[in-house]
Protein backbone atom coordinates (compact mmCIF):
# COMPACT_ATOMS: atom_id res chain seq x y z
CA UNK A 1 0.00 0.00 0.00
CA UNK A 2 1.33 3.41 -0.95
CA UNK A 3 1.98 5.74 1.93
CA UNK A 4 -0.30 8.78 1.89
CA UNK A 5 1.68 12.02 1.96
CA UNK A 6 0.58 15.36 3.33
CA UNK A 7 -1.48 17.68 1.19
CA UNK A 8 0.92 20.16 -0.52
CA UNK A 9 -1.45 23.00 0.36
CA UNK A 10 -0.99 22.16 4.02
CA UNK A 11 2.80 22.04 3.59
CA UNK A 12 2.86 25.62 2.33
CA UNK A 13 0.44 26.77 5.00
CA UNK A 14 2.48 25.03 7.66
CA UNK A 15 5.69 26.67 6.45
CA UNK A 16 3.94 30.01 6.66
CA UNK A 17 2.76 29.23 10.18
CA UNK A 18 -0.83 29.53 8.97
CA UNK A 19 -2.04 25.98 9.49
CA UNK A 20 -4.13 25.76 12.62
CA UNK A 21 -6.48 23.61 14.70
CA UNK A 22 -6.76 19.89 14.14
CA UNK A 23 -5.14 20.17 10.73
CA UNK A 24 -1.96 21.47 12.35
CA UNK A 25 -1.82 18.61 14.84
CA UNK A 26 -2.49 16.00 12.18
CA UNK A 27 0.10 17.54 9.86
CA UNK A 28 2.82 17.65 12.51
CA UNK A 29 2.06 14.07 13.54
CA UNK A 30 2.43 12.95 9.94
CA UNK A 31 5.62 14.89 9.24
CA UNK A 32 7.28 13.42 12.30
CA UNK A 33 6.98 9.99 10.74
CA UNK A 34 7.40 10.82 7.05
CA UNK A 35 10.82 11.83 5.80
CA UNK A 36 9.49 12.73 2.34
CA UNK A 37 7.04 15.26 3.76
CA UNK A 38 9.67 16.51 6.23
CA UNK A 39 11.88 17.37 3.24
CA UNK A 40 8.97 19.13 1.55
CA UNK A 41 8.45 21.18 4.71
CA UNK A 42 12.10 22.14 4.76
CA UNK A 43 11.98 23.30 1.14
CA UNK A 44 8.77 25.24 1.75
CA UNK A 45 10.20 26.86 4.88
CA UNK A 46 13.17 28.05 2.90
CA UNK A 47 10.96 29.63 0.23
CA UNK A 48 8.86 31.22 2.95
CA UNK A 49 11.96 32.56 4.72
CA UNK A 50 12.97 34.36 1.56
CA UNK A 51 9.62 36.16 1.41
CA UNK A 52 11.04 38.48 4.05
CA UNK A 53 13.31 39.92 1.38
CA UNK A 54 10.30 41.35 -0.39
CA UNK A 55 9.80 43.98 2.31
CA UNK A 56 10.56 47.55 1.22
CA UNK A 57 14.15 48.45 2.04
CA UNK A 58 14.61 50.32 5.31
CA UNK A 59 18.07 50.73 6.83
CA UNK A 60 18.42 50.51 10.61
CA UNK A 61 19.82 53.65 12.23
CA UNK A 62 23.51 53.45 13.21
CA UNK A 63 22.51 53.70 16.88
CA UNK A 64 21.21 50.10 16.76
CA UNK A 65 24.62 48.72 15.87
CA UNK A 66 26.35 50.98 18.37
CA UNK A 67 24.02 49.83 21.12
CA UNK A 68 24.44 46.19 20.10
CA UNK A 69 28.22 46.41 20.23
CA UNK A 70 28.07 48.15 23.61
CA UNK A 71 25.97 45.29 24.95
CA UNK A 72 28.36 42.77 23.45
CA UNK A 73 31.36 44.46 25.05
CA UNK A 74 29.54 44.56 28.37
CA UNK A 75 29.04 40.82 28.15
CA UNK A 76 32.60 40.04 27.16
CA UNK A 77 34.20 37.48 29.37
CA UNK A 78 37.75 38.19 30.50
CA UNK A 79 40.33 35.53 29.71
CA UNK A 80 39.52 32.48 31.78
CA UNK A 81 42.17 30.52 33.61
CA UNK A 82 41.21 27.21 32.02
CA UNK A 83 42.98 27.71 28.72
CA UNK A 84 45.19 24.67 28.70
CA UNK A 85 44.37 21.98 26.16
CA UNK A 86 44.16 18.33 27.04
CA UNK A 87 46.72 16.09 25.37
CA UNK A 88 46.56 12.34 24.96
CA UNK A 89 46.84 10.44 27.15
CA UNK A 90 44.72 12.64 29.31
CA UNK A 91 46.48 14.77 31.87
CA UNK A 92 45.18 15.13 35.36
CA UNK A 93 42.76 18.02 35.67
CA UNK A 94 43.71 21.09 37.58
CA UNK A 95 42.04 21.04 40.91
CA UNK A 96 40.18 24.12 41.94
CA UNK A 97 38.02 24.87 44.85
CA UNK A 98 34.87 26.85 44.85
CA UNK A 99 31.66 27.56 46.63
CA UNK A 100 29.25 26.92 43.77
CA UNK A 101 28.15 23.48 44.89
CA UNK A 102 28.72 23.79 48.63
CA UNK A 103 28.49 27.33 49.90
CA UNK A 104 29.96 26.24 53.23
CA UNK A 105 33.26 25.40 51.65
CA UNK A 106 34.79 28.86 52.03
CA UNK A 107 33.95 28.71 55.69
CA UNK A 108 35.58 25.29 55.94
CA UNK A 109 38.78 26.67 54.53
CA UNK A 110 38.82 29.50 57.04
CA UNK A 111 38.13 26.96 59.75
CA UNK A 112 41.09 24.92 58.56
CA UNK A 113 43.35 27.93 58.74
CA UNK A 114 42.04 28.87 62.19
CA UNK A 115 42.52 25.33 63.43
CA UNK A 116 46.09 25.34 62.27
CA UNK A 117 46.64 28.61 64.08
CA UNK A 118 45.19 27.24 67.31
CA UNK A 119 47.39 24.18 67.20
CA UNK A 120 50.33 26.39 66.48
CA UNK A 121 49.64 28.43 69.67
CA UNK A 122 49.18 25.30 71.80
CA UNK A 123 52.48 23.83 70.77
CA UNK A 124 54.37 27.07 70.78
CA UNK A 125 57.25 25.71 72.81
CA UNK A 126 57.92 22.76 70.60
CA UNK A 127 60.13 24.23 67.94
CA UNK A 128 60.01 21.19 65.71
CA UNK A 129 56.25 21.10 65.76
CA UNK A 130 56.19 24.85 65.34
CA UNK A 131 58.05 24.52 62.07
CA UNK A 132 55.71 21.75 61.06
CA UNK A 133 52.59 23.67 61.88
CA UNK A 134 53.92 26.81 60.32
CA UNK A 135 54.29 24.84 57.13
CA UNK A 136 50.71 23.61 57.49
CA UNK A 137 49.54 27.13 58.07
CA UNK A 138 51.35 28.28 54.95
CA UNK A 139 49.61 25.54 52.99
CA UNK A 140 46.26 26.52 54.45
CA UNK A 141 46.88 30.15 53.58
CA UNK A 142 47.88 29.22 50.06
CA UNK A 143 44.74 27.13 49.81
CA UNK A 144 42.68 30.05 50.99
CA UNK A 145 44.09 32.20 48.21
CA UNK A 146 43.42 29.42 45.73
CA UNK A 147 39.92 29.01 47.10
CA UNK A 148 39.17 32.69 46.76
CA UNK A 149 40.39 32.70 43.16
CA UNK A 150 38.51 29.55 42.26
CA UNK A 151 35.37 30.92 43.91
CA UNK A 152 35.69 34.05 41.79
CA UNK A 153 36.16 31.91 38.67
CA UNK A 154 33.10 29.88 39.52
CA UNK A 155 31.04 32.96 40.28
CA UNK A 156 32.04 34.37 36.94
CA UNK A 157 31.05 31.15 35.19
CA UNK A 158 27.75 30.97 37.03
CA UNK A 159 27.00 34.59 36.18
CA UNK A 160 27.92 34.34 32.52
CA UNK A 161 25.15 34.19 29.90
CA UNK A 162 24.72 30.73 28.48
CA UNK A 163 26.12 28.83 31.44
CA UNK A 164 24.18 25.63 32.00
CA UNK A 165 24.04 23.28 34.97
CA UNK A 166 24.11 19.62 34.04
CA UNK A 167 23.39 17.02 36.71
CA UNK A 168 25.35 13.77 36.29
CA UNK A 169 23.38 10.80 37.53
CA UNK A 170 24.65 7.53 38.95
CA UNK A 171 24.42 4.62 36.52
CA UNK A 172 22.93 1.21 37.28
CA UNK A 173 25.57 -1.14 38.63
CA UNK A 174 28.06 1.67 39.13
CA UNK A 175 29.40 3.09 42.37
CA UNK A 176 27.02 5.28 44.30
CA UNK A 177 27.58 8.96 43.79
CA UNK A 178 26.52 12.01 41.89
CA UNK A 179 28.00 15.13 40.38
CA UNK A 180 27.23 18.35 38.60
CA UNK A 181 28.83 20.21 35.74
CA UNK A 182 28.74 23.90 34.96
CA UNK A 183 29.13 24.31 31.23
CA UNK A 184 29.44 27.35 29.02
CA UNK A 185 29.78 26.47 25.34
CA UNK A 186 30.86 29.92 24.19
CA UNK A 187 33.52 30.26 26.85
CA UNK A 188 34.57 26.64 26.34
CA UNK A 189 34.52 26.26 30.11
CA UNK A 190 33.54 23.27 32.20
CA UNK A 191 33.61 23.00 35.98
CA UNK A 192 32.90 19.65 37.57
CA UNK A 193 32.27 18.65 41.17
CA UNK A 194 30.86 15.49 42.61
CA UNK A 195 30.73 12.96 45.40
CA UNK A 196 32.27 9.66 44.43
CA UNK A 197 33.95 6.83 46.33
CA UNK A 198 37.72 6.72 45.73
CA UNK A 199 38.61 5.06 42.43
CA UNK A 200 39.80 1.45 42.85
CA UNK A 201 43.56 0.83 42.87
CA UNK A 202 45.03 1.27 39.41
CA UNK A 203 41.97 3.12 38.15
CA UNK A 204 41.01 6.74 37.57
CA UNK A 205 37.79 8.53 36.96
CA UNK A 206 37.76 10.28 33.60
CA UNK A 207 35.38 13.04 32.55
CA UNK A 208 34.15 13.12 28.94
CA UNK A 209 32.30 15.61 26.82
CA UNK A 210 29.98 13.80 24.43
CA UNK A 211 29.44 16.02 21.36
CA UNK A 212 26.36 16.00 19.16
CA UNK A 213 28.42 14.15 16.58
CA UNK A 214 31.83 12.55 16.69
CA UNK A 215 33.83 10.84 19.36
CA UNK A 216 33.79 11.79 23.04
CA UNK A 217 36.38 14.37 24.09
CA UNK A 218 38.39 13.76 27.23
CA UNK A 219 38.25 16.60 29.71
CA UNK A 220 40.79 14.92 31.94
CA UNK A 221 41.17 12.39 34.71
CA UNK A 222 40.70 13.04 38.38
CA UNK A 223 40.94 11.28 41.65
CA UNK A 224 39.28 13.98 43.71
CA UNK A 225 36.04 12.70 45.15
CA UNK A 226 35.23 15.62 47.38
CA UNK A 227 32.41 17.95 46.23
CA UNK A 228 34.31 20.80 47.85
CA UNK A 229 37.13 20.40 45.37
CA UNK A 230 35.74 21.12 41.88
CA UNK A 231 37.86 20.56 38.82
CA UNK A 232 37.86 22.77 35.76
CA UNK A 233 38.56 21.99 32.14
CA UNK A 234 38.63 23.65 28.77
CA UNK A 235 36.53 22.54 25.81
CA UNK A 236 38.19 22.87 22.40
CA UNK A 237 36.48 25.52 20.25
CA UNK A 238 33.69 24.41 17.97
CA UNK A 239 32.69 21.45 20.06
CA UNK A 240 29.26 21.61 21.62
CA UNK A 241 28.30 19.16 24.30
CA UNK A 242 25.29 16.90 24.03
CA UNK A 243 26.13 15.17 27.30
CA UNK A 244 28.83 14.68 29.91
CA UNK A 245 29.90 11.34 31.32
CA UNK A 246 32.37 9.96 33.83
CA UNK A 247 33.91 6.56 33.17
CA UNK A 248 36.25 4.37 35.18
CA UNK A 249 39.48 3.95 33.24
CA UNK A 250 42.99 2.58 33.76
CA UNK A 251 45.03 4.97 35.90
CA UNK A 252 46.05 8.04 33.93
CA UNK A 253 43.07 7.86 31.57
CA UNK A 254 42.51 6.69 28.02
CA UNK A 255 42.23 8.53 24.68
CA UNK A 256 38.70 7.15 24.29
CA UNK A 257 36.36 5.66 26.86
CA UNK A 258 36.90 1.98 27.49
CA UNK A 259 35.50 1.49 30.97
CA UNK A 260 32.02 1.50 32.43
CA UNK A 261 30.05 4.73 32.62
CA UNK A 262 29.56 5.66 36.24
CA UNK A 263 27.90 9.05 35.81
CA UNK A 264 25.97 10.51 32.89
CA UNK A 265 24.22 13.82 32.38
CA UNK A 266 22.48 15.09 29.24
CA UNK A 267 22.71 18.77 28.30
CA UNK A 268 19.16 20.03 27.97
Amino acid sequence: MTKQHANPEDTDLYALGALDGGELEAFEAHVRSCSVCAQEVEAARLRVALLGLAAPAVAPPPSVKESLMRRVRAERIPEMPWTERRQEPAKPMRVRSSTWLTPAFGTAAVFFAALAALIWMKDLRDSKRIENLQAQLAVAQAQSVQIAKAAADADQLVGSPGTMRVALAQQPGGPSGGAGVLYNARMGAVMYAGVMPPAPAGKSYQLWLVPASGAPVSLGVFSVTDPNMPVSAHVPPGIVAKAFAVTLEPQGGMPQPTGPKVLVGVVS
Partner: protein
Amino acid sequence: MTASMQPVPDSGLVERIMAGDESALAALYDRYAGMLFAMLVRILRDTGAAEEVLQDLFLQLWRGAARFDASRGSMAAWLLVIGRNRAISRLRGRESREILEDPQEFSFESLPSSGNLEDEASRMQLMGRLRAGLATLPAEQREVLELAYFEGMTQTEIAAKTGSPLGTVKSRVRAAMQTLKQYFDDETTRQPGRH
Protein backbone atom coordinates in the same frame (compact mmCIF):
# COMPACT_ATOMS: atom_id res chain seq x y z
CA MET B 1 39.38 45.37 -13.08
CA THR B 2 40.28 42.29 -11.13
CA ALA B 3 37.83 39.68 -10.04
CA SER B 4 35.63 40.85 -7.23
CA MET B 5 36.66 39.91 -3.72
CA GLN B 6 34.85 36.95 -2.26
CA PRO B 7 33.08 37.83 0.96
CA VAL B 8 34.15 35.99 4.08
CA PRO B 9 31.71 33.09 4.37
CA ASP B 10 29.19 33.18 7.18
CA SER B 11 30.71 30.01 8.63
CA GLY B 12 34.07 31.78 9.01
CA LEU B 13 32.45 34.71 10.77
CA VAL B 14 30.56 32.36 13.09
CA GLU B 15 33.81 30.65 14.03
CA ARG B 16 35.34 34.01 14.86
CA ILE B 17 32.31 34.95 16.94
CA MET B 18 32.74 31.73 18.87
CA ALA B 19 36.30 32.83 19.57
CA GLY B 20 34.95 36.11 20.94
CA ASP B 21 35.74 38.30 17.94
CA GLU B 22 33.38 41.28 18.09
CA SER B 23 34.38 42.45 14.62
CA ALA B 24 32.98 39.23 13.15
CA LEU B 25 29.61 39.95 14.73
CA ALA B 26 29.81 43.48 13.37
CA ALA B 27 30.51 42.07 9.90
CA LEU B 28 27.52 39.73 10.06
CA TYR B 29 25.41 42.63 11.28
CA ASP B 30 26.54 44.77 8.35
CA ARG B 31 25.74 41.93 5.99
CA TYR B 32 22.23 41.09 7.17
CA ALA B 33 20.87 43.88 9.37
CA GLY B 34 19.42 45.78 6.39
CA MET B 35 17.32 42.96 5.01
CA LEU B 36 16.23 41.89 8.49
CA PHE B 37 15.29 45.38 9.58
CA ALA B 38 13.18 45.89 6.45
CA MET B 39 11.28 42.69 7.20
CA LEU B 40 10.86 43.57 10.89
CA VAL B 41 9.54 47.06 10.14
CA ARG B 42 7.13 45.62 7.59
CA ILE B 43 5.78 43.16 10.16
CA LEU B 44 5.80 45.34 13.25
CA ARG B 45 5.10 48.70 11.60
CA ASP B 46 7.07 50.23 14.44
CA THR B 47 10.72 51.12 13.91
CA GLY B 48 11.45 51.20 17.65
CA ALA B 49 10.13 47.68 18.14
CA ALA B 50 11.97 46.54 15.02
CA GLU B 51 15.22 47.97 16.37
CA GLU B 52 14.78 46.05 19.62
CA VAL B 53 14.08 42.76 17.87
CA LEU B 54 17.01 43.30 15.51
CA GLN B 55 19.40 43.99 18.34
CA ASP B 56 18.18 41.01 20.37
CA LEU B 57 18.55 38.79 17.33
CA PHE B 58 22.24 39.58 16.94
CA LEU B 59 22.81 39.42 20.66
CA GLN B 60 21.35 35.91 20.58
CA LEU B 61 23.73 35.11 17.75
CA TRP B 62 26.67 36.39 19.82
CA ARG B 63 25.66 34.32 22.81
CA GLY B 64 24.72 31.16 20.95
CA ALA B 65 26.98 31.03 17.91
CA ALA B 66 28.47 27.79 19.16
CA ARG B 67 25.14 26.12 18.63
CA PHE B 68 24.96 27.11 14.98
CA ASP B 69 26.31 24.43 12.68
CA ALA B 70 27.00 26.20 9.40
CA SER B 71 27.20 22.89 7.60
CA ARG B 72 23.56 22.24 8.37
CA GLY B 73 21.94 25.46 7.33
CA SER B 74 22.06 28.95 5.98
CA MET B 75 22.75 31.71 8.48
CA ALA B 76 20.71 34.17 6.43
CA ALA B 77 17.68 31.88 6.33
CA TRP B 78 18.00 31.17 10.03
CA LEU B 79 18.08 34.89 10.81
CA LEU B 80 15.07 35.53 8.58
CA VAL B 81 13.07 32.71 10.16
CA ILE B 82 13.91 33.67 13.72
CA GLY B 83 13.50 37.38 13.06
CA ARG B 84 10.05 36.82 11.61
CA ASN B 85 9.17 34.42 14.40
CA ARG B 86 10.12 36.99 17.04
CA ALA B 87 8.32 39.80 15.27
CA ILE B 88 5.10 37.82 14.74
CA SER B 89 5.19 36.70 18.38
CA ARG B 90 5.49 40.30 19.46
CA LEU B 91 2.83 41.46 17.05
CA ARG B 92 0.35 38.76 17.92
CA GLY B 93 1.25 38.34 21.56
CA ARG B 94 1.86 34.65 21.20
CA GLU B 95 4.70 32.38 22.19
CA SER B 96 7.68 31.99 19.90
CA ARG B 97 7.97 28.63 18.25
CA GLU B 98 11.07 27.64 20.14
CA ILE B 99 11.86 24.71 17.90
CA LEU B 100 12.54 27.13 15.06
CA GLU B 101 14.88 29.14 17.25
CA ASP B 102 17.28 26.33 17.96
CA PRO B 103 19.98 26.33 15.30
CA GLN B 104 20.57 22.66 15.99
CA GLU B 105 17.01 21.92 14.97
CA PHE B 106 17.35 24.07 11.92
CA SER B 107 18.52 22.42 8.75
CA PHE B 108 18.07 24.30 5.54
CA GLU B 109 20.48 22.38 3.38
CA SER B 110 21.21 25.42 1.28
CA LEU B 111 19.65 28.44 -0.23
CA PRO B 112 18.44 28.19 -3.83
CA SER B 113 21.27 28.30 -6.32
CA SER B 114 20.27 31.85 -7.15
CA GLY B 115 20.28 32.89 -3.54
CA ASN B 116 23.78 33.31 -2.19
CA LEU B 117 22.91 35.91 0.41
CA GLU B 118 26.47 36.24 1.68
CA ASP B 119 27.25 38.43 -1.29
CA GLU B 120 25.73 41.91 -1.38
CA ALA B 121 25.11 41.97 -5.12
CA SER B 122 23.43 38.57 -5.12
CA ARG B 123 21.34 39.60 -2.15
CA MET B 124 20.10 42.71 -3.93
CA GLN B 125 19.44 40.68 -7.07
CA LEU B 126 17.40 38.13 -5.15
CA MET B 127 15.39 40.87 -3.45
CA GLY B 128 14.60 42.41 -6.81
CA ARG B 129 13.53 39.10 -8.32
CA LEU B 130 11.37 38.29 -5.33
CA ARG B 131 9.58 41.61 -5.47
CA ALA B 132 9.07 41.20 -9.19
CA GLY B 133 7.76 37.69 -8.61
CA LEU B 134 5.28 38.87 -6.02
CA ALA B 135 4.15 41.63 -8.34
CA THR B 136 3.16 39.04 -10.93
CA LEU B 137 0.78 37.31 -8.52
CA PRO B 138 -2.96 37.96 -8.79
CA ALA B 139 -4.02 40.38 -6.07
CA GLU B 140 -6.01 37.80 -4.10
CA GLN B 141 -3.04 35.44 -4.00
CA ARG B 142 -0.65 38.16 -2.94
CA GLU B 143 -3.10 39.19 -0.24
CA VAL B 144 -3.29 35.77 1.40
CA LEU B 145 0.48 35.40 1.26
CA GLU B 146 1.04 38.79 2.87
CA LEU B 147 -1.59 38.23 5.54
CA ALA B 148 0.06 34.95 6.47
CA TYR B 149 3.67 36.05 6.24
CA PHE B 150 3.65 39.66 7.40
CA GLU B 151 0.58 39.67 9.63
CA GLY B 152 1.09 36.19 11.06
CA MET B 153 -2.52 35.19 10.43
CA THR B 154 -3.65 31.58 10.37
CA GLN B 155 -5.71 30.18 7.51
CA THR B 156 -8.87 30.48 9.61
CA GLU B 157 -8.15 34.12 10.39
CA ILE B 158 -7.40 34.86 6.75
CA ALA B 159 -10.65 33.21 5.71
CA ALA B 160 -12.55 35.34 8.23
CA LYS B 161 -10.79 38.53 7.20
CA THR B 162 -11.17 38.06 3.47
CA GLY B 163 -14.59 36.42 3.64
CA SER B 164 -13.30 33.54 1.55
CA PRO B 165 -13.94 29.86 2.24
CA LEU B 166 -11.09 28.02 3.93
CA GLY B 167 -10.55 25.86 0.86
CA THR B 168 -10.13 28.96 -1.28
CA VAL B 169 -7.53 30.37 1.12
CA LYS B 170 -5.61 27.10 0.96
CA SER B 171 -5.65 26.95 -2.80
CA ARG B 172 -4.63 30.60 -3.14
CA VAL B 173 -1.64 30.11 -0.84
CA ARG B 174 -0.66 27.01 -2.74
CA ALA B 175 -0.99 28.72 -6.11
CA ALA B 176 1.04 31.71 -4.91
CA MET B 177 3.83 29.55 -3.55
CA GLN B 178 3.90 27.47 -6.72
CA THR B 179 4.12 30.58 -8.85
CA LEU B 180 6.99 31.95 -6.81
CA LYS B 181 8.82 28.63 -6.93
CA GLN B 182 8.35 28.51 -10.69
CA TYR B 183 9.45 32.11 -11.01
CA PHE B 184 12.65 31.44 -9.11
CA ASP B 185 13.39 28.34 -11.12
CA ASP B 186 12.81 30.19 -14.41
CA GLU B 187 14.90 33.15 -13.34
CA THR B 188 17.71 30.89 -12.29
CA THR B 189 17.83 28.98 -15.55
CA ARG B 190 17.51 32.21 -17.54
CA GLN B 191 20.72 33.59 -16.05
CA PRO B 192 23.77 31.97 -17.65
CA GLY B 193 26.84 31.69 -15.50
CA ARG B 194 24.89 31.27 -12.30
CA HIS B 195 25.34 28.02 -10.55
